[in-house]
């Protein structure tokens, strides 16, 4: 069988493309949920990148997913900004979840300015995490958020409705939250294959 070729020969003629070794993440941003951390390639949120959280409707589990990270960042003296949240963050509950309210800022803006405000916060480099609820976010707007997060090395979270999962997105991580059963599904994660099995969501109360 004359078709046997040595591997080195193939590599030398550059007919085989070798994936570059993945650079180890600079800083790990654990999600605070052990099962989720284990499933994600960076062992946490992708740092300096956009994460999309896909929800059936606002108020169905996004805070349980994000609260541990927000609590960790704010108690560490880093700023977290909520840009136009859909409801009023109920301060006693946020405090009970461990969030230091001193480091939590609320930005109110109309839908047109909300993306601008989120981008400014991300780009500034003085915010550790920015949560936004973009209405009608197109691919371009999300890409801007992604680039801004990279520039400012901040965690960007965009909460969007479930049907947005049908469209491609530049986000580094996409997580869908299901209510029944309560579970998280990783749809896309940069730097690894998305885990096929859903992860049981942590639910309090």
């Amino acid at each position, binding site marked *: 069988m004359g078709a046997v070729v040595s591997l080195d020969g193939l590599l030398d003629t550059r007919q085989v493309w070798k994936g570059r070794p993945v650079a180890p993440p600079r800083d790990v941003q654990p999600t605070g949920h052990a099962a989720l951390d284990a499933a994600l390639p960076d062992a946490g949120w992708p740092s300096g990148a956009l994460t999309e959280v896909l929800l*059936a*409707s*606002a*108020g*169905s*589990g*996004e*805070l*349980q997913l994000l*609260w541990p990270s927000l609590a960790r960042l704010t108690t*560490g003296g*880093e*700023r977290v900004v909520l840009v136009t*949240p*859909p*409801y*009023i*963050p*109920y*301060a*006693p*509950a*946020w*405090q*009970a*979840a461990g969030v230091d*309210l*001193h480091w*939590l*800022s*609320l*930005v*109110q*803006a109309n839908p047109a*300015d909300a993306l*601008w*405000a989120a981008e*400014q*916060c991300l*780009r*500034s*480099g*003085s*915010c*550790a995490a920015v949560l936004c609820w973009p209405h009608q976010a197109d691919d371009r707007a999300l890409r801007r958020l992604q680039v801004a997060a990279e*520039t*400012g*090395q901040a965690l960007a979270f965009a909460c969007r409705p479930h049907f947005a999962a049908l469209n491609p997105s530049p986000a580094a991580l996409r997580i869908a939250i*299901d*209510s*029944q059963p*309560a579970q998280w599904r990783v749809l896309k994660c940069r730097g690894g294959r998305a885990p096929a099995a859903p992860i049981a969501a942590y639910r*309090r*109360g």
Partner: protein
Amino acid sequence: MLWACILLPQLALDGVLRGRDDPVAPLVLISGPTQRRVLQAVNPSAHALGLRAGQTLSTAQTLAQGFTCVEHDPAATEHLQQLLAAWAYRFSSQVSLHYPRALLLEVESSLGLFGPWPAFEARLREELTALGFRHRIVLASNPVAARMLANGHDGLAAFCPDQTRAALVRMPIERIGLAADAATAFVRMGVRTLDQVLALPRDALARRFAAPVQLHLDRLLGLRPMALACYMPADRFDARLELNFDVESHQALLFPLRRLINDLTVFLVGRDVGVQRFTLYLEHAEAEDTRVVVGLLAAEREAGMLFELARGRLEALQLVAPVRNLRLLAEDLPRFVPPLGELFEARTQQHQPWEQLRERLRARLGDEAVRTLQVQADHRPECAWRLGEGRLANISAPAAPRPGWLLATPQALLADGFQVLAGPERIESGWWDGDDIRRDYYLIETASGQRGWAYRNVGDSHSLWLQGWFA
């Protein structure tokens, strides 16, 4: 004491040129009565056209075309002198405007901070050039000598009375600030330089010339002191810029605005204060002035940031009429405290501090756009939180679960489509302020699996009101 004299030979012209966005275009300053307009100063490109200071306007118009005429405004020049004195006040506590178009600075006491002199001088020159003023700088051991040496020198530095004297004696007699008749008399006597004057017997000189001549010569050589009125910085900043034409768009206002704000920061740095609040007046020809108030949460003095903020406010504005003049008034000037930076900061690549970002957001989105949450000790859900600034004492959260999201107004729930998971929890409070509530709270789950927090008013058995989501 060492005195530096900064002579501004083209102060009026430079003041006009720095306000224009095309400073290389031919431009002349004119003055004099309407019947006989005279060119007061010309810029280099107008000079290249053959125009000279002192020509009449009609001569100039026959010689060349396409140059811009600007009326010479002594008040504006005076204002520029004040601004430059405020700038110089940053480098020395003794600044004098005794001579027109010249700044006198006592610099020996400043050398410890800004020195040595060559570095100090380079810094003065660099900042003056950035501000757009041509200048000559001379250092001498007394203020009069410094001023008079600036007539014939640039960059001269005489550190002791002997060096000053050595430089002075070579000066021509017409250039040392003597009265015109005295200088002419000296020239006619065949005396052309200062050392020839000093060679004359003192009593003969006193007999031939009036007393002020001897006084001036003594002051020049530092033999008699001279009392100078020192500049006192103003308590407020008020600058006005005439636009010369009607401006109808925001874009055209940005250049003059940037200049005003640069002048403001020069003033602030000189006084070592910050600005917390300033007002822009857009003056219209007919209508009433438009006021744009720019307020900050903390005192700032960084030009780029102040400009961005003012620009944000300006762009949100609808111009009702063309703008003739732009005025900037800053009266609230608290002490400036530079932010403390940490040496070993976790976020090394801080591009923009949070305070700046917050001002930026407020400038575009409104003063109330950026808020912080606080917990209040109250059992009523509506009153258990408030927006505000500052840190409150840590209030322990209730043991029972509370929703992360609160609805601004409770919504009525349909009779079916949910099931009650837990409850009731009675909250009865607020009798003291009239907003008292008596409610039974339930934890509910909707058909789609969302968990909510709903209440029923005690005594009203029917409707259930949704007030929050356990997200």
